[in-house]
């Protein structure tokens, strides 16, 4: 709950609040992800702005009822713009003791704690490695506890259908959902439609889930347990048609759109890896869009097949996460040398090595910039939010084809699995991506390594008469592309490849800043920390601090006005979910003593920690600050 707090506990009272953060937590078999998605969609349909954070165990099916098996889904929905799923919870729904103890830390004092009291039996406690029930602990007093016998109530609701106990109990989650919907005044329709579609072949189950959902709602309305229900007004988002979108889905759709805009077939070579696999799954669905997906034997084959396809003229895309990206390094070098357009997408996760596969992190930036032998620069872009994956994918492909260069996109586990409302673009109104393949004239010598104004070489594709040529990983002679061991030529080519990437800066839109254009503090961020940083800076500004926010999409090359921007602030703070990777680049390039705020915990920043850091680094006196600045600039 962002600004307001509940005021009284009169039954059936409706409180209008500006926003709510709620987490649904239960066993991974309890369908928490499904519930969360339903609540998200319903809230979005109600016109709220929403942001989500699913958090599931690394195991496929960790043993039921254990702490390791807890699956959570957090949603913030609000009447204003939200950029994060929220720091602290206004409400926590805990389906079992393990879910309670592993999540209670995030519930704010006075927050609503709803538990399924039927699952606090001795055996449940034992599975959660507890000796006594947490519901009997004194600290429970800190929260508004609602003990609901969800299992019993659900069984009762579906009794007449004659289901087995197991099947009946599976409907519990919809009972919980019904309560939550009542609590926040959400409409049941979308979820009822979902149940109908999902269980259309199992009419009994469909009926049972519907009943459970309605029973939950009815229970909320009837019981005295909840002080009040809450109402969150629609947010005023820009005009348009919206849908909820997840990061990996937006990435896939962005890729499909880029292919469409450039009139290209897409060849997608990949190898499954968490948290990138859903891009493979998503793209595999759309064969009627002319998307060829190949699950290769490994990541090396994945990128190599993609390079082969690119040589043939297709839009080549490969995706992975850190460990798989490491395996692609050698082939990325080949793509740099043979100068073909290609997208390499890294959905980052906790590292090093296998690390924390289901957790988020931003620690692959330097790997993508430098993790190849020799001088092998490539443009690197980073998406900032689920919906932004769409735009980033389109822009990356635009760059790849204009400059004939492999381009890297960084996403991360947080963005990939998170979701947010997305203003659906009209594809027909998007700017086309223009690609030309040269044709040949008999008798004219073709120069595969000739250059256009951007230093791009021609993308001549097999099948074109007279343009037969050979490419490869050995150094190329300028122009002809023949193998060359010449010293001066090598240096020239190294510079051309570097300059070509540097040239991308010419088409990058100038970097924007939110907040004062000069002042005490600039928060410089990139990638998935966008939401937390933006929210924290806005809060800082609200508090009257001299702080601005600059969020980078372009990690290489940097926008050309970045140096100038950095010079306009007394300090620069770079929050990153790593040990300071962007910070190193900024310090090296601009020689400014940028300060890092670094967390490597496999989870996103909380807004409050950033707010605190900003407070620490600013005087809180905006006017004084700007006068100070004037004197400094003078």
């Amino acid at each position, binding site marked *: 709950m962002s600004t307001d707090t509940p005021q009284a506990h009169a039954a059936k009272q409706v409180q209008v609040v500006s926003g709510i953060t709620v987490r649904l937590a239960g066993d991974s078999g309890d369908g928490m992800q499904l519930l969360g998605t339903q609540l998200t969609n319903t809230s979005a349909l109600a016109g709220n702005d929403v942001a989500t954070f699913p958090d599931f165990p690394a195991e496929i099916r960790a043993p039921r009822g254990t702490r390791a098996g807890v699956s959570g889904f957090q949603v913030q929905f609000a009447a204003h713009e939200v950029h994060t799923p929220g720091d602290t919870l206004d409400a926590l729904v805990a389906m079992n003791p393990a879910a309670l103890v592993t999540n209670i830390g995030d519930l704010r004092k006075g927050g609503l704690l709803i538990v399924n009291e039927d699952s606090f039996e001795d055996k449940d406690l034992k599975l959660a490695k507890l000796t006594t029930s947490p519901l009997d602990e004194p600290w429970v007093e800190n929260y508004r506890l609602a003990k609901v016998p969800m299992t019993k109530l659900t069984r009762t609701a579906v009794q007449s259908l004659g289901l087995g106990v197991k099947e009946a109990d599976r409907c519990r989650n919809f009972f919980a959902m019904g309560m939550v919907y009542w609590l926040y005044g959400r409409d049941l329709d979308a979820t009822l439609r979902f149940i109908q579609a999902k269980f259309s072949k199992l009419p009994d189950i469909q009926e049972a889930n519907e009943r459970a959902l309605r029973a939950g709602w009815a229970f909320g309305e009837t019981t005295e347990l909840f002080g009040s229900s809450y109402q969150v007004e629609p947010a005023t988002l820009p005009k348009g048609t919206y*849908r909820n979108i997840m990061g990996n889905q937006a990435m896939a759709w962005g890729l499909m759109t880029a292919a469409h805009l450039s009139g290209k077939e897409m060849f997608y070579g990949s190898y499954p890896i968490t948290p990138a696999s859903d891009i493979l799954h998503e793209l595999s669905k759309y*064969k009627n869009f002319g998307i060829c997906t190949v699950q290769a034997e490994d990541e090396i084959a994945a990128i190599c097949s993609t390079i*082969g396809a690119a040589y043939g003229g297709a839009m080549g895309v490969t995706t992975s996460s850190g460990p798989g990206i490491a395996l692609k390094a050698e082939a990325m070098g080949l793509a740099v040398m043979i100068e073909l357009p290609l997208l390499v997408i890294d959905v980052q996760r906790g590292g090093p090595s296998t690390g924390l596969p289901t957790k988020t992190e931003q620690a692959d930036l330097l790997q993508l910039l430098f993790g190849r032998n020799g001088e092998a620069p490539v443009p690197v872009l980073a998406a900032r939010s689920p919906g932004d994956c769409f735009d980033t994918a389109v822009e990356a492909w635009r760059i790849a084809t204009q400059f004939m260069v492999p381009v890297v996109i960084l996403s991360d586990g947080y963005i990939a699995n998170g979701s947010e409302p997305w203003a*659906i673009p009209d594809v027909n109104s998007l700017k086309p991506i223009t690609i030309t393949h040269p044709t040949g004239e008999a008798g004219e010598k073709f120069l595969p390594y000739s250059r256009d104004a951007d230093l791009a070489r021609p993308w001549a594709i097999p099948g074109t008469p*007279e343009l037969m040529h050979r490419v490869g990983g050995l150094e190329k002679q300028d122009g002809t592309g023949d193998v060359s061991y010449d010293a001066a030529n090598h240096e020239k080519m190294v510079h051309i490849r570097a300059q070509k990437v540097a040239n991308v800066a010419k088409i990058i839109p100038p970097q924007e800043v939110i907040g004062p254009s000069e002042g005490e503090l600039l928060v410089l961020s990139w990638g998935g920390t966008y939401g937390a940083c933006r929210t924290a800076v806005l809060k800082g500004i609200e508090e009257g601090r001299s702080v601005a926010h600059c969020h980078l999409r372009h990690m290489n090359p940097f926008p050309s006005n970045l140096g100038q921007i950095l010079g306009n602030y007394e300090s620069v703070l770079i929050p990153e979910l790593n040990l300071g990777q962007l910070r190193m680049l900024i310090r090296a390039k601009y020689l400014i003593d940028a300060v890092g705020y670094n967390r490597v915990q496999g989870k996103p920043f909380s807004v409050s920690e950033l707010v605190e850091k900003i407070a620490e680094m600013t005087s809180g006196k905006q006017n004084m600050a700007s006068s100070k600045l004037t004197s400094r600039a003078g």
Partner: protein
Amino acid sequence: MSAALPVLTANDFASDQDIRWCPGCGDYSILAQMKKMLPSLGLPLEQIVFISGIGCSSRFPYYMNTYGMHSIHGRAPALATGLRVARPDLKVFVITGDGDSLSIGGNHFIHLLRRNVNLTLVLFNNRIYGLTKGQYSPTSPEGQVTKSTPMGAVDHPLNPISIALGAEASFIARSVDSNIKHLAATLYRAAQHRGTSVVEVYQNCNVFNDGAFSYAQDKATRDDTTLELEHGKPLIFGKNRDKGIRLNGLHPEVVSLADGSVSHDDLLFHDEKAESTLVHLLAKMRHPQFPEPIGVFRDIEIPIFEDQVRGQLDSAIAKRGAGDLNKLFRSGDTWEVA
């Protein structure tokens, strides 16, 4: 393939690049036979792509006046797979060495075969690493002394034919660099096959492993040490075609045809379409116990990868119509903000 195609000659397939193999290297002969064979495919230069890995043999694409890529060590099969899926209209050849395909590239080799991508892979087997100046390779015999094995190699060598068969390749053949007619004919057969055709070529590296295959190369001995496979024909070999292979249970044995006590009908007959057990048995016939079969071990027709991958696109379109992004984006739950 245009109708008014000019008739090409071997020379048309030569690029303008200086050839940089050692004088006397077996690679020259393979290059020559490839150039000689290609015109018979009736394809224009621009329809053909040569993709190689790294090694002496892998410089091959530079010498061909076609499209080509000299890629990275061991990965040519993966590159070629992507190219064929994206561009099934192109004729693709993969050129690789014994190290390139069976050491670093062993996995891609197997997966290429199981997918049965429609291309021809020519494996230049010289039983040595040529380009890196003479280390042992996965096909080097046990005990071979090389720079990296001064006391002799200790691993059991891989047999390319056995590995190909293990991965259930649809076309498997073997030839010898110096047996130029046989080589050209074998390359032609391979190029005609729909699916992955693997041709192992015994290739002499006269600098680092001279004479590794002299038994199969020397005109004086080769009739007795190799056996030309012919579909539907009994297995007969020898300068005077006086020896044959007979089956004893599951074991082949060499029999003399000289005294007439064994007739052709008693011999094992070659069948390119046979179940793989015959191929297995042929692969196991190694010098000096047996003559080594050369020619086409196997040639069966099974679905090819890119047909099926692309076929799924077609049938998806047939079933669901060509994709419409605007429609897709607006499917499911959406809402309007006015």
